C-alpha cells in the first residue's frame, strides 16, 4: 500500500510543540544551564563544569534526606496501596444512596488544599487542644511531634495515608466496577475461593489502575513538600526534612542557585528512574505469568 506523504501535518502539531517547549523544555534547560555555573548575581556567572554535581553527590545532608525520602515513599506505597485495595473491595457497588455517600466521604480528603491538611494535623496532634494529642495525653502516652522525631515521622506518614489512600481506593473501585457480573458468577460456578476470585479476577482487572495508583502515589510522595513543611517544618532536627524541602532551603534560603539546579536535575532523574522501574515491574508481573 502507498502511504500518502504530506509534511503539512507537522503544522498541526506546532502548537503542542510550542506549549511543551515553553512549559517544560525551556525551564528544564534553564536549570541545566544554572547547574554548570556559579552565579553571583545578574551578569556575574562563571562556568564551573560538573563541580555542582560533585558537590551534590557528596552532600551528606542530601544523602540523609534521600534515604529518608526513599523509606518514606516505600512506606506510603506499602500502606496506601493494600489499604486502598481493601477499602475498594469493601465498598458497596451499584447505584444506591450508600454508594454515593461512600464515594463522597472518600473523596473529601482529596478536596482539601495541601497546606490546610498540614494545618489540620498540626492542630489535631497538639497536646493542649488537639483531639489526637489530647487523647494520647489523657491515656498517658507522651506524644509530641514537635520534639520526638519518631512521633513526627509517623504523624507525617499517617497524615499522608489519611490524605491519599482515598485516591488509591477510588481508582481501585473504578477498576473493580468495570468487571462484568458474569465473571463473579462464573467463578462461583467454578468453585473458586474468595482468594482465588481476588487473585485471578479482581487483581488482574485492577492492574491498569494500580499502575496509575502506584506511579501517582510514588511521584507525589517522593516530591512531598507542603504538608510536612506546615506540620513540622522539617523537624525536629532534620528528621522530617525530605528532598524537596532541602532543595527549597538550598535554592531560596541559601540562594545556592547552581547547587540547587544540579540537585534538581539529580532529583528529577531519580523520580524518572523509580517510576520507570515501578512501571516495568508491574507490567511485567502481569505479562510474565506464563509458564
Amino acid at each position, binding site marked *: 500500500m502507498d502511504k500518502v506523504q504530506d509534511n503539512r501535518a507537522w503544522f498541526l502539531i506546532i502548537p503542542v510543540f510550542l506549549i511543551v517547549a515553553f512549559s517544560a523544555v525551556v525551564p528544564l534547560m534553564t536549570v541545566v544551564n544554572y547547574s554548570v555555573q556559579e552565579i553571583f548575581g545578574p551578569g556575574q556567572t562563571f562556568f564551573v563544569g560538573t563541580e555542582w554535581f560533585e558537590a551534590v553527590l557528596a552532600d551528606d545532608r542530601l544523602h540523609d534526606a534521600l534515604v529518608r525520602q526513599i523509606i518514606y515513599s516505600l512506606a506510603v506505597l506499602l500502606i496506601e496501596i493494600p489499604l486502598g485495595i481493601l477499602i475498594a473491595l469493601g465498598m458497596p457497588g451499584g447505584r444506591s444512596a450508600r454508594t454515593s455517600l461512600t464515594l463522597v466521604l472518600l473523596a473529601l480528603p482529596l478536596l482539601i488544599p495541601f497546606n490546610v491538611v498540614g494545618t489540620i494535623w498540626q492542630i489535631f496532634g497538639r497536646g493542649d487542644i488537639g483531639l489526637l494529642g489530647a487523647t494520647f495525653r489523657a491515656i498517658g502516652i507522651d506524644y509530641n511531634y514537635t520534639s520526638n522525631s519518631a512521633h513526627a515521622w509517623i504523624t507525617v506518614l499517617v497524615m499522608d495515608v489519611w490524605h491519599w489512600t482515598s485516591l488509591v481506593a477510588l481508582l481501585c473501585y473504578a477498576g473493580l466496577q468495570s468487571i*462484568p457480573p*458474569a*465473571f463473579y*458468577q*462464573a467463578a*462461583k*460456578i*467454578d*468453585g*473458586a*475461593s474468595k482468594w*482465588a476470585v481476588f487473585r*485471578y*479476577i479482581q487483581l*488482574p*482487572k485492577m492492574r491498569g489502575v494500580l499502575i496509575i495508583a502506584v506511579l501517582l502515589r510514588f511521584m507525589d510522595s517522593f516530591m512531598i513538600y507542603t504538608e510536612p513543611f506546615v506540620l513540622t517544618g522539617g523537624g525536629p532536627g532534620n528528621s522530617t526534612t525530605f528532598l524537596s524541602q532541602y532543595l527549597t532551603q538550598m535554592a531560596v534560603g541559601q540562594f545556592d542557585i547552581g547547587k540547587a539546579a544540579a540537585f534538581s536535575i539529580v532529583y528529577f532523574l531519580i523520580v524518572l528512574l523509580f517510576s520507570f522501574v515501578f512501571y516495568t515491574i508491574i507490567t511485567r508481573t*502481569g505479562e510474565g*505469568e*506464563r*509458564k
Partner: protein
Amino acid sequence: MATIQFDNLGHSYHPHPGKPEDYALRRLSQEWEDGKAYALLGPSGCGKSTLLNIISGLLVPSEGRVLFDGLDVTRCTPEERNIAQVFQFPVIYDTMTVYENLAFPLRNRKVPAADVDRRVRQVAEALDLTADLKKRAQRLTPDAKQKISMGRGLVRSDVAAILFDEPLTVIDPHTKWILRRKLRQIHEDYRLTMIYVTHDQVEALTFADKVAVMYEGAMVQLGTPQELFENPLHTFVGYFIGSPGINLMPCTLGGDHALVDGIAIPLPERTVPAVEGRAAGRFELGIRPEFLELTRAGGAGAVPVQVTGVDDLGTSRLATVRLGSHTLKARLNEEQEVPALDAAVRFPGRWTKLYRDSHLVN
C-alpha cells in the same frame, strides 16, 4: 446428570407481587429429563434468563421449589448444585494459560492431578483447543475465549447440568454453525443435560431435543421442534417459530364455522364440541403459511381470496392473499400455478387452529 423438576416455581422482583404482570416468571410445574438438550427460547425480557438463573442457583425464586433428582436445591448455591454455566460473553481468567483455565474448576474441587490432565486434554481435543493449551488465554480470539468458557463447563464430568446463556452472541455466523455442531456432538457423546438460552429460533430448533418457548414470563409451550411447528399451543409460538410466522385472523364463532369479517371458514371437527355454546373470549383462527392451500374457487371448503403478490424465495414461493380485511401468506411449491382471478384458499382441518385468548382450543 440429573432430572430437573420445577414445583410451582415462580419469581417476582417485586416485594409484594399481585398482578400476573408483576412476575418475571409465572407459576410453572414441570419435569425436565436427564441427559436431554433443552432450549429456552423467547424475546428479550420474557423471563428466560430469570429461569436459567433459578436453575443455576444464582437467583433464589420467590415462590416454589427446584428439585434435582428429587432433591430440593432451591436454596443451594451453584457449587452445591454442581452446575456449570456458560455466559453470553466469554469469561476467562486473563492471567492463566488455556490449560490452567480449563483445569481451574477441577483444581478448585481438589481433583487428582492425573485426572485433571486427562479431562483437560479430552475437552481441549473436543473443542479444537489442543494447539492453544500453553498460550495465555488473554491473547486468543473471542471465539476461542468462548470455547474456553464452554470447556470449563464441559471439563467437569459429574455436573448435574450445563447451562448456556446465549453463548454464541459474540461469535461470527460461520463459527456459530461449527460451535453449535460441536456442542450437539458433545451432547450426543456424553449425554449431558444441557439447557440453552437463546432468542434465535434457528439456534434453538437445531440444538435442542425440546424447546421451551417463553413469553411475558410464562412458558407457553414445551415441546420438540416438530410439535412447536405443527401444533403451536399459543399464538406467540405460532408467530415466533417459523418464517414467516403463522397467519392469524380475529374471528367470531357461528356453529361449526368461524366467521372472519363475515366470511365463513369451516372449523376442524375436533374443535367444534370444545367451543359449542361457549363463545366467551377473544377468538383467533390460525394456520401456518406452509399448510394454507391456494386453489381455484368452487371446491368444497374453498374460501375466495384475492392474490396480491407472489414472492420467490428461491426454494419455494410465497403468495400474499387478501381475505376480507386480512392479509395471509401461503407457501407454494415451484410448479404450482397461481390462479389469477378466481383464487381461493382451503383450510385443511388438521392444520387449522382456533385460539381463545391466545391459547389453543382443544
